[in-house]
Each structure stands twice: as C-alpha cells, then as structure tokens.
C-alpha cells in the first residue's frame, strides 16, 4: 500500500515535471496547405518541399537574410580555371546521427543529385563532375565559364555518405515516377532542425539540433508541421490557436485575419509567375480534334490568351493581390525588362476570329490539368479561365486533383493545357526557367519541358548564356530568349502570385523574403 502510494506520488510529480518542461519548450505549430512530397529533397523540384527540408539539410552555400549568397557548409571557394571551382569545407560539422561532415559526403551527394534518374539534376545544369582534393577540399567541374554555380549550390543539399551507403539510399528517389527509398521517409542532415517523427499527410515533427555549427538566431525547440488542405480549416485552426503559423493564408480570409487582434498577416508579391502550358506534341491527349494538335497553331494559342479577362481574375479570384503580367519572370528576377511585361489585350471577339481563321469556328475540346493544392487559388483560377474559354467556344475538360496525382500526369505529358508556377528558385535568375522549362529536353536541360515544345534558336541563346561569365551579356541572351518565347506565345502568362503568411500571438518575429520560404532558424517566439 505504502509503495503504491509512493509510486503514485512519484508519478504525479513526474507528470507535473514533464508538463512543466513541455510548457517551457517553445513549440511552433505550423499549418501548411499541403505536405512535403517526400523527406528526400532530391525527389522532386518543388520549392515548398525544399523550403521545408532546408530546416534539416544544408548546401555548401545558402541565401542569407538579404537573399545574398553566404557560406554554409563551405567556408570559402575560388575559381581555379573556367571549368573548375574549388570549395573549402567547414570543419567540425556533424550530421544529426553524429557522423562528421567531410569531402566524401559532398562527392556522394553530387553523384546522387546528378544521377540520370534524379528529378533534381536540372537544378545543377552545368555540373560535369567532382573530385576530392583532401578531407576538407573538393573541386567541382562545370561546363566552361558557367556563371551560376553558387546560386545552384544553395539548394543542392549534402547527405552523409556512410548513411546513404548503410541504408542503400545512394540512388535518388523520384516522386513523379513513384520511386521511393530509405530517404523518402528518413532524414539525416546537418541543418538547424532534425526530424523527430513523420507521418505522411498527417504530422511531421522537427526538433532543434543543439549541435548545429551555426550560432542559432531562433529560440524554437520543436516544430510540429501539419498539412491542412482545406483553407477554411486552416484559418479556423489559426484563429483558435491550434496552429501558430501558416505560410498559406487564404486570400479571401486576409481581412478577417487582420481584424483579429492576435493574428498578424504578412502579405506581399512573391517571385513566382503562374502560367499555362500547352501540349506541343503532334497528338492531343483528350480532344475532339484527333488528327492534329490545335495547340501547335499560334492563332489558337493567341485566341486562348486573348479570351482571358485577366483584370477580372485579378480583382475577383486573386482579391486584387496578384500582379498581372505578360512576362514569364517577375521584375525582381535578373533578365527581366519592361518590354517583356506587356500583355495582349483581352478581346474575346478577336479570339473568336482567330479560332475561325485557324479552322475551328466552333472551338474544340481539350484536357485542362490543374491542381487544387499547388499555387494560390489555383483551382479557382482554372475554373474561371474555363468559363472564359467557354465563351469563345473552347471546351476545357477541367481535371482538378491534388499535386501528388497531377505531377505524374505532367511529367508524362498527359495534358493538353496545364498550369505551372515558376519562381526561379533557388537560382534567382531567369536562367532557371530558361534552362529547366523553356529549353528542349536534352541532358540536364528541359527537365520541366512537359509539353515537348522545341525552339532551336532559343535553345542556342540559352546555351550561350550558360557559358557567358559577363553578366550583362548573359542577361542580354536571356532577355532575347524570353522575348522569342513571348512572341510565339509558347506559354500563357497570368500573374506573379501573392504570398500571404499569417501568424498567431506566440511568434515574436519572422523573416519573410520574396522567395516565400519560411526560415524558422531566423524566427523568435515569445
């Protein structure tokens, strides 16, 4: 009896103590619009996934608070020759499992990311190979005079070689093709947080890495990351204090959130431009025109362009918060010039005339692939545009589903019209969209060339830019390439999308940059 009493007292005391320590911990509860596609940052070129995993994994260099390139796992670097860069690595860095960080890890990671099966190889387009000089020095070989290696390396994160080998995870995974591996559900990086637990689509818990090499500018002990797809539920969760932060506050709810004294909203334009893609192969995917592909006719593409009432879209669907654009890149992205930004006027009558001239006076039907958890108000955009197209006789068979389903359709080219948003991250240069989206699918180029468009002249311009160290000349090539693509209406640009974060009373300060990436290693809680 006595011992029972003692045990129960001990239990009560222990319970009180744990509650106390839990209360003393700073736990940040993050409600996102969707889950990360994988814990493997190489498994899909998705900015959001990489942004989340940047808390766990780091690259040789990183962007600082001003979006300038700063040392991370490399402390310094020099250009040895036009094709060779030498990096000096930081000493004393440890992975989350305690293994030391050395040159072997860098080499293994570069081999993994540049594997022909790696979906992220397009993020390192100029990479030719890497050699270990000593334990803390590596040399990276590139195509001659490649200007943007450091920008690329900001998000080529470093894995632990022994961990990869021990878990047979040397080969990259691929979300789009359904290739999974150990790294899909496990993580071992050098970053400020480590993964404590993960339940896909339910909850991922991050714990502070006390052995982080950098001096922490945050006071967070734990991050609980929960995907909440329904925007209304997300807002309710924030208002009730169930979450402390969301990186995706629904535009229509911003006034309501701002009116709440405890909630702070950070809204601004981000770098991401949203545009439509066309299937440019010989065959349509799901259309009543089967003998040829109408999308290959510039008149058809122009008709689709001119039948979109972008002002109504901006005002109603985007709540006046998006920036209408004729350009594929945001003004802040190098390579942008004002001339790129002019839009063809909204003119449904002209659109009808163009369709008639192209031989489709009664329009035609086609598949229109959209996601419902990707870009800001994406489903609403696609619906609204479908009805605008319907008014000129174009029947869009709208296929809306979560990103996880649609990615596979995009990567296999199973769409007639699709949607893509490109932020030019992590490069923050228009070379990113040019080499990854616009370029034909050759080697590491054109990884996102989902519709099979081919512009040899533009490819040549992009290739020239890729070996031009003179910044002005390089940007000249890139602007020319963007102009040619614009003149042919290869894509149908809509707007630079707004970003809206909202946070509850527990968050003291947070850093929001135009790349729309939450950085909790720079976040203070009360």
């Amino acid at each position, binding site marked *: 009896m006595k011992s029972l009493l003692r045990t129960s007292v001990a239990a009560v005391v222990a319970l009180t103590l744990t509650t106390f320590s839990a209360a003393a911990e700073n736990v940040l509860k993050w409600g996102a619009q969707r889950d990360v596609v994988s814990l493997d940052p190489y498994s899909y070129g998705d900015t959001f996934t990489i942004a989340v995993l940047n808390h766990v994994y780091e690259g040789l260099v990183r962007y600082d608070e001003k979006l300038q390139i700063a040392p991370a796992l490399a402390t310094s670097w020099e250009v040895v020759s036009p094709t060779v860069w030498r990096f000096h690595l930081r000493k004393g860095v440890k992975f989350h499992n305690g293994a030391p960080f050395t040159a072997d890890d860098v080499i293994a990671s570069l081999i993994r990311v540049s594997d022909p099966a790696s979906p992220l190889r397009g993020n390192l387009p100029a990479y030719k190979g890497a050699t270990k000089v000593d334990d803390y020095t590596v040399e990276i070989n590139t195509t001659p005079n490649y200007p943007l290696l450091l920008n690329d390396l900001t998000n080529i994160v470093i894995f632990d070689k022994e961990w990869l080998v021990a878990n047979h995870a040397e080969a990259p995974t691929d979300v789009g093709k359904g290739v999974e591996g150990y790294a899909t559900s496990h993580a071992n990086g050098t970053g400020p947080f480590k993964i404590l637990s993960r339940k896909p689509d339910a909850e991922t818990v991050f714990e502070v890495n006390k052995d982080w090499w950098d001096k922490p500018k945050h006071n967070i002990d734990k991050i609980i990351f929960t995907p909440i797809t329904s925007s209304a539920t997300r807002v309710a969760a924030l208002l009730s204090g169930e979450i402390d932060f969301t990186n995706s506050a629904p535009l229509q709810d911003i006034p309501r959130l701002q009116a709440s004294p405890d909630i702070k909203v950070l809204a601004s334009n981000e770098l991401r431009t949203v545009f439509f893609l066309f299937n440019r192969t010989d065959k349509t995917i799901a259309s009543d025109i089967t003998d040829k592909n109408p999308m290959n006719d510039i008149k058809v593409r122009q008709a689709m362009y001119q039948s979109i009432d972008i002002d*109504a879209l901006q005002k109603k669907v985007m709540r006046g918060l998006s920036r209408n654009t004729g350009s594929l890149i945001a003004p802040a992205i190098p390579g942008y010039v004002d001339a790129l930004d002019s839009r063809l006027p909204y003119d449904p009558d002209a659109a009808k005339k163009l369709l008639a001239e192209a031989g489709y006076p009664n329009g035609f039907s086609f598949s229109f692939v959209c996601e419902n958890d990707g870009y800001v108000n994406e489903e609403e955009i696609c619906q609204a545009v479908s009805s605008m197209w319907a008014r000129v006789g174009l029947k869009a068979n709208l296929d809306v589903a979560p990103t996880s389903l649609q990615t596979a359709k995009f990567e296999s080219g199973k769409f007639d019209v699709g949607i893509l948003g490109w932020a030019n991250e992590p490069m923050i240069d228009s070379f990113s969209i040019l080499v990854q989206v616009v370029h034909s699918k050759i080697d590491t180029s054109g990884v996102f060339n989902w519709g099979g468009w081919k512009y040899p002249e533009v490819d040549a311009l992009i290739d020239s830019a890729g070996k031009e160290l003179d910044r002005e000349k390089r940007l000249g090539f890139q602007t020319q390439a963007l102009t040619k693509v614009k003149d042919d209406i290869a894509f149908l640009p809509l707007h630079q999308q707004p970003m809206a974060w909202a946070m509850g009373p527990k968050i003291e300060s947070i850093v929001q940059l135009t790349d729309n990436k939450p950085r909790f290693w720079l976040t203070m809680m009360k």
Partner: protein
Amino acid sequence: MSVETQATKTPDAPRFARLRAFLDGDLAHGFFHTPSAVISALVLLLIALTAIAAPLLSPQNPYDLTQLFLDKAELPPIWSAGGEAPYLLGTDVQGRDIFSAILYGSRISLMIGFASVIVSVLIGIAVGLTSGYIGGRIDNFLMRVGDLVLSIPTLLVAILVSAIFRQLLPVSLRDAFTPVILTTSIAITSWVQYARIVRASTMVEARKEYVLAARILQLPSSKIMVSHILPNVMTAVLVTATLNLGLAILAEATLSFLGVGMPVTQPSLGTLIRIGNQYFFSGSWWVVLFPALQLSLIILAVNLLGDWLRDALNPKLR
C-alpha cells in the same frame, strides 16, 4: 366502399388485398392525420418539382460556363446591400447563381439518391430471393459476399469504387459519367440490407401454403419467386428503401464534399457546400448556408416520411 367494389371485381387477387387495404384505408388515414408526414411529403414534392423544373425556374444554367461572369462573383443575397437581380440568393466566387445552382444541384442529389436506392433494391431483391428460396450453398455464398461488403465502411468502398472508375475513364467522358459512377458506388455498398431483409422474409413465406400450392402446380421457381413471394416481402423493403434514400443522398453529398463526387462544373449540393466552405470566414456565408439548408431539408423530410412509413407499416405498433 371502393375496396369492396374492387375486391368483388377482381376476386382472383386476394394476395393484393392486404396492400390495397393499407393504401385505401389505414395507411392513407394515418398519413393525413400525421402532420409531420404530410409536411415532409409536401416539402419533398416541392423540392422534387422545383428540381425537375430547374431549367424553367432558374435565371442561369450553372452548368453552362458561358453564363458565369466573374464580375458578378460573390454577390450577396438580393435583400442585402450589394445584392443584384436576378441573383436571388447571391452568387459564388465564380459568378454562379446560388439559387440556380441549388435547383440543379438538388436535381443531381435526388437523382443519384433515387437511382442508387432503386439499383440497390433491385440487386438486394435478386440476391435475397435467390438466397432465401434456393438456400444451401448458393445462399451461403451470397450471404458471405454480403458480409464482406458490410465489413468495409460504406464510404470507404464508395470512395474506392469511384476512384477506380474515374481512373479508368478518359478525361473527356469523366464528367458525363460521374453521376453513373456515384450511383453505382453507392448502390454496391447498400444492397446487402435489402438482400438480408428479402432473404429472411422469403424463407418464412416459402413455407406457407400458397407457395406450396404453387409448387404443386409445378410453376417455375422464377415465377413463384417473382409473382408469389415478392409482393409479400415488399412492405419491409419499401420502408428500408425510404429510410435509405436519405442515407444515399447524404452519401453522395459526402463524396462530393470530399472532392471525389460531382465535379465543380456540375455541382451537386455536396459540391456546393465544399465550395462554400472555403468562403465561410471571408463573410460570404450565403455560398455555404443555402445549399446546406436545402440538403438538411431534403434529408429531414425523407427521414420523417420514412419514420412514419415504418411505424405505419409495422403491425406491432398499430
């Protein structure tokens, strides 16, 4: 009075006498003296009529994308400030007239509800009669299949079936076939109840004298099942079917709310609620409230009617 005349006119139909007595006598009398039953029947009738006449009554065809205008999006109901004719109950974020969308949406909801109940009743009767009349191994097999279906949650099966069908169909046909897919997926999860009821009653009826008489006459089994046993087991089926109509409508709404049902381009009530749910916090309450009210009204009316029918046809309660 009419009972007698009819009975004398058709003396060879004693087996219909019980049913007819209900309809002409007690049942009708009970119905008109149960206000909840009368009101729910009237409400259902009104909803069904307006749903059928939707193209005539609604100012806009919400399925016709050319009639949706973004500049008329998110207008409040006509009686609030900013409301505009002819958008009686306001519009949603795509400029869809809520009133029209509700009429068209009810049409789909009721259609899928009725169709799936009819399909599941037909399957249930076929399985139940066979099982109960023939018995033996066939009975065992059919009932184990039923157990299997019952052991998996209805909604899960429905989601699975509709997901599989949607993947199999080409994109261009998907929208057109969605009502059929939904009907099928709801029906194949709810036939077991009817099968069990019909089987139990069939086993009882099969031992009665009139069935024995029919067998002595060497009538084929199919004829005995359909024209002799079936009329006598229909009462219980009718009650269950009425009560299940509400569940079927609700199942469709749930599937659409979850995003695996009717597409946004031809919204059912569930789809409308899903759309409206996103705009609840922003102050556009009308987008979600009115479709939700309509759905509740339909379900309530069907359930009240079903409850009354169950009581009225239950010999123990009379």
